[in-house]
């Protein structure tokens, strides 16, 4: 095949792929243009997760009527003129690519009126071709309407995630910018529903309340630090509040949302030992420095930046966060958990650790045909059953020790109980799920995204013994909980379910149900630290023996460690001496 210069159309579609990969990236580019235009008010309307319509209206400086067509040409920008400008970029955009890229993959309408201009002008571009250019009336500012996004790139369209995911991406994006620019009024409408409204009163905590709900906003700690020419501001969650993923860690550098692993590591390190392993803080950190200290021309979507002195920036962030944490940290409480953590530090006997590793290794190798240590596979159910176990006792109020014909078993009481409850629940599937009504319905207010997620899953919850109803806005009312959860705080249960939904979405409804049940069982199961009587220990082990996949908890962690007779003999040096 001969080498050819690509047709203009194809080239611009390829370029568009780098900048515009999903509806949220269009929103981002348009929003940044509005911000660069000095807007005080930005209104965003979305229909059908951005696939049908994305419309961004602002009251910024507008585009001169004669330059409208130039605005949608590639490498056309008003923000930069010479290469050396690249090193002191003060605007969010500079590549002159966004509008052209968007225009090449959608039907784009651009209407703008400059200050002092009598009339506005309107152009329509479809798939990169100008199809209309007329005079139009509108207030000062710019309106960009993007319709039928990706209509000419079916592959891209096919790879979009579910509508819910795309909608969430947009909501998340806009709320982050609303937080970064508290002086600007943001309004986001999704399918004619107001999802977010910030008042532009320059009060970050107020925006925070919009995003995370009043409760959490009140508890967030303020971060403020100035180190010569680096300024770190923002909010972080106190030690008691955490998430199971890093998604709520947000950094803005010079007003630009960036994803920088170094920055988040610095932040998480500042929490060192204060959060449990696998838990992450919620944080919105705004770092400001002079434009020369940071190179933004690294990534087409500008999600990454390069710092001239990365270490200094990381240190500044870390110091700021640490200082805020220390200033607000509560006095340590005497509780059973301190005892637990202390005993954890004492360190494990190396032999036991070795035994555990050996055990793991045995679990990981391909299953021997007659071996008793096969990898637990939900499919091959009958093979997985446990031998009869004799309970010896409880260790550290968290583990049960039991003896089987093939050695010693250490059983995690929490994980084991989770498994028992999970299978019991699953057996009852399709039958009546008993639930316990609350004396007083409890209301719970969630952040907008979480509220939307919960709303879509209400039917699932209500099928599994909850009665949760939408109570207007982002508020829900809990009337009943599954019977096995009675005695626990219903609000905490619902919150943890929502957190699970946020974790990631699976398109399989059955899997969502299994996840809800797994979470319910996790809550209801006996905790580590609970002392069990001999009868309770026995009952738990009996129930576990009857389970179909007794070796893992519903979340996939092991419920037990097996130390085989063989391993014990080797560890004690009895083998081979005879």
């Amino acid at each position, binding site marked *: 095949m001969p080498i050819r210069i690509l047709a203009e159309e194809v080239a611009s579609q390829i370029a568009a792929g780098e900048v515009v990969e999903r509806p949220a990236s269009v929103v981002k580019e348009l929003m940044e243009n509005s911000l660069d235009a000095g807007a005080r008010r930005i209104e965003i309307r979305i229909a059908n997760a951005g696939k049908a319509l994305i419309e961004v209206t602002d009251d910024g400086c507008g585009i001169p009527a004669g330059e409208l067509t130039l605005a949608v040409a590639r490498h056309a920008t008003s923000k930069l003129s010479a290469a050396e400008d690249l090193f002191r970029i003060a605007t969010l955009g500079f590549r002159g690519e966004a509008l052209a890229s968007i225009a090449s993959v959608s039907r784009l309408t651009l209407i703008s009126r400059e200050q002092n201009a009598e009339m506005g002008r309107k152009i329509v571009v479809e798939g990169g071709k100008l199809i209309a250019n007329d005079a139009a009336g509108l207030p000062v500012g710019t309106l960009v309407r993007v319709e039928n996004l990706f209509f000419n790139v079916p592959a891209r369209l096919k790879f979009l995630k579910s509508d819910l995911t795309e909608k969430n991406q947009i909501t998340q994006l806009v709320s982050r910018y609303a937080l970064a620019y508290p002086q600007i009024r943001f309004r986001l409408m999704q399918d004619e529903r107001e999802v977010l409204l910030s008042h532009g009163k320059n009060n970050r905590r107020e925006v925070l309340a919009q995003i995370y709900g009043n409760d959490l906003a009140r508890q967030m700690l303020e971060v403020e630090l100035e180190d010569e020419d680096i300024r770190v501001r923002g909010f972080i969650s106190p030690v008691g509040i955490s998430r199971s993923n890093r998604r709520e860690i947000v950094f803005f550098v010079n007003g630009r949302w960036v994803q920088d692993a170094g920055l988040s590591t610095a932040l998480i390190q500042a929490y060192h030992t204060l959060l449990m392993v696998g838990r992450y803080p919620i944080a919105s950190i705004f770092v400001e420095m002079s434009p020369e200290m940071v190179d933004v021309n690294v990534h087409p979507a500008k999600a990454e930046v390069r710092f001239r002195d990365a270490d200094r920036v990381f240190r500044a962030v870390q110091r700021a966060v640490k200082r805020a944490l220390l200033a607000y940290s509560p006095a340590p409480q*005497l509780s059973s958990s301190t005892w637990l953590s202390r005993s954890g530090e004492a360190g494990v006997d190396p032999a036991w650790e070795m035994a555990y590793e050996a055990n793991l290794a045995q679990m990981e190798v391909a299953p021997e045909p007659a071996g008793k240590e096969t990898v637990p596979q939900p499919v091959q159910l009958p093979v997985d059953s446990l031998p009869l176990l004799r309970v010896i006792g409880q260790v550290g109020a968290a583990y049960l020790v039991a003896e089987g014909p093939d050695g010693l078993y250490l059983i995690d009481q929490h994980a084991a109980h989770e498994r028992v409850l999970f299978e019991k629940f699953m057996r*009852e599937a399709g039958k009546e799920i*008993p639930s*316990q*009504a609350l*004396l007083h319905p*409890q209301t719970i207010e969630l952040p907008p995204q979480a509220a939307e997620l919960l709303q879509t899953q209400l039917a699932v919850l209500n099928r599994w013994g909850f*009665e949760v109803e939408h109570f207007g806005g982002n508020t829900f009312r809990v009337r009943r909980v599954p019977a096995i959860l009675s*005695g626990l*705080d219903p609000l905490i249960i619902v919150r943890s379910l929502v957190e699970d939904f946020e974790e990631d979405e699976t398109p399989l409804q059955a899997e969502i149900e299994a996840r809800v049940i797994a979470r319910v069982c996790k809550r209801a199961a006996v905790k580590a630290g609970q002392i069990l009587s001999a009868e309770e220990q026995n009952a738990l082990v009996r129930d576990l023996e009857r389970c179909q996949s007794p070796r893992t908890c519903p979340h996939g962690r092991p419920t037990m460690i097996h130390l085989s007779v063989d391993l014990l003999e080797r560890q004690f040096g009895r083998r081979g001496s005879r």
Partner: protein
Amino acid sequence: MKASVQQQHLAHGLAIVSKAVSPRSTLPVLANILIASDDGRLRLSATNLELGITCWIPATIEDAGAITVPARTFQDLVNTLTGERIDLTLDPRTQTLNVRSGSSNTDIKGIDAQEFPPIPVPDLSEGVSLNVNDFKEMIQQVVFAASTDEARPVLQGVLLNIKEDQITMAATDGFRISVRKGLLSNPVRQEISVIIPARALTELARIATDGEQMLTMNVPPGRGQVIFHVKDAELVSQLIDGNFPDYRAIIPRSYKTHTVLSTPAFLKACKQAEIIAREGNNVVRLNILPGSDSPGVVEVSAQSEETGASQIQVDANIEGSPLLIAFNVKFLREVLDVIKTPSVALETNQNNTPATIKPIGDDDFVHVIMPMHLG
């Protein structure tokens, strides 16, 4: 310190205070019991910083002094001593307590008494006087309804309100609520409204053995503590800070079906049903069937996938419409267990609205349970 005590006094005193020892604390001294001479008696104290218990026992004091010793060690030792008299001698230089009784001679290493947290002293003139027997019954009737969930500290407590000569206690776990009223012999001048940890009240009921006596309750202003004083013993507890749910709004004012049952018969039926129900989420169904001319009957039934099914019939006087309603059998059993009257009334509306349980002939006690729903 040098003192002699009788073995049975010391063993009794240790049994009382040891419940407040916190063996797993990061503060070693909290695993110890304070032993101090106090005005011709021996004072024993233990605390976990939330709950503190002090007890005085008769003793012959030769030299004054104080020491703390590990609770388990000391208590286990004292319980095995057979001699009647125990001599305690402290070597202040080594902080070692010598325990000598009959042919037994033991040295126990202690921790300086100075390190023991100070235990507040009540102002007995400011206290509220309560009859021990009455107060113990009140505690018993509400305390079981408190929550055991550490995530909701307020519900782990019992609301205690005293206004003039009215005393009210209430506890709830969000699914049921127990409210008990009573009268004081001496009205108080200022209203008291506090949330006391259920655990502290349970301990108090255990300590206050002499039912005919009075106990004194003292809430020192601004300290967030409550102190109970009985003869020879004191209990101090931290109060729980927070808003207790408004229980008056929760108690239903009317009913559609009024069912009167024999308390012991109903309790027995629940206990039998629980044997089956505990394998299946504790669900029992009450089928309330009014009779046309004969008295009605309540069918108490439970079934479990794995264990089986049971049905018990209890005779009842029923006014109103028939109803099939499900409850957590544990909730029913626990409230019936503390009702002292021979008959009990169950007032219901629908199978998804709260039900009220009241002893017949005692207007001071009300218990409300939310039903279960079988979806």
